[in-house]
């Protein structure tokens, strides 16, 4: 639902991270990211220490969005998988539950075939989790903790005044 926030709880987040970690391990990939289609980084596993994950997430989403529009021009709903082959490293992108992008970066320590195989399994598992999350958010009566009350707003405003100044 447009405008509704994406809310991740501990149990779901733990499951998501386990699936990503297993994917990275089983494919011998460098890292895997989960990015929502607006460009926000949801989670990452693997070797991302020396990498600008936020920019990577934003660009991945932009990339996916642009190619989705190309697909529509061709009369298709979207391309479910994108693959960019590099000299040393390659990127595999696939969509999860229509709203999240799974990005896997790998080098010649593994093969595209293995990545595709394991990604397919990971996408199925992640789709189940995210569909549950979206269901929970859609049903606002499912008592999502409303911690962001007046205190959060006033404290955040104070920080905004403090940091964003000439």
């Amino acid at each position, binding site marked *: 639902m447009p405008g509704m*926030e*994406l809310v991740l*709880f501990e149990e779901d*987040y733990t499951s998501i991270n386990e699936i990503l970690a297993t994917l990275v391990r089983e494919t011998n990939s460098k890292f895997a990211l989960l990015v929502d289609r607006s460009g926000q980084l949801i989670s990452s596993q693997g070797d991302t220490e020396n990498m600008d994950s936020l*920019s990577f997430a934003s660009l991945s989403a932009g990339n996916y969005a642009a190619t989705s*529009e190309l697909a529509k021009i061709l009369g298709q709903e979207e391309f479910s998988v994108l693959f960019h082959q590099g000299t040393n490293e390659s990127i595999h992108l696939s969509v999860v539950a229509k709203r999240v992008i799974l990005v896997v970066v790998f080098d010649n320590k593994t093969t595209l075939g293995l990545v595709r195989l394991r990604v397919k399994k990971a996408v199925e598992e992640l789709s189940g989790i995210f569909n549950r999350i979206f269901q929970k958010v859609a049903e606002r009566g499912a008592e999502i903790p409303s911690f962001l009350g007046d205190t959060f707003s006033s404290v955040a405003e104070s920080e905004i005044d403090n940091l964003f100044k*000439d």
Partner: protein
Amino acid sequence: MSLINYSSREINCKIVYYGCGLCGKTTNLLYIHEKLPHDIKGKMVSLATDTDRTLFFDFLPLELGTVNGFKTRFHLYTVPGQVHYDASRKLILKGVDGIVFVVDSQRNRFDENIESFENMKKNLQLQGYRLENIPYIFQYNKRDLPNCSPVEQLEGTLNKNQVPCFESIATTGIGVFDSLRAISKLVIAHLSRQTAR
């Protein structure tokens, strides 16, 4: 669409700078990036043409710090303003939490500002949003130029809902942080109201 992660205690919000070509959207982000300290800002990404016109988007992540135990971030984006990049503009609006509509105050850009505003409303609708439900502000830029339309005229034409507006000279930074503070606060207030329901 804000991302709230209760597990890792993170909140991310997306703010988009929209407006016609060369109105000052990228200039806003460049100024913000130049002035903020390293611990608040991330790397700025600009997908631009050889002549420095925005091709797809600019992206600048900002970290507000920890608020009530939650690491709070704003992700700033600009859209490409040139008319023929409409398909790209629509995509950048996906998941938007707040908009700064940058107006080129020059008299000879008057009609283009109106077209850009209508274009924004149309693209929001295509993404399933309604402008009335999204926090937004106006930034009347280039107020230093001699051939500017009066703010009252711009307000009367564009700002029918009387949302907050700011005069600016983005090249020198005047009004840039005023606008950023205002839209950030509106986004936070909107988010607080949504999660308090």
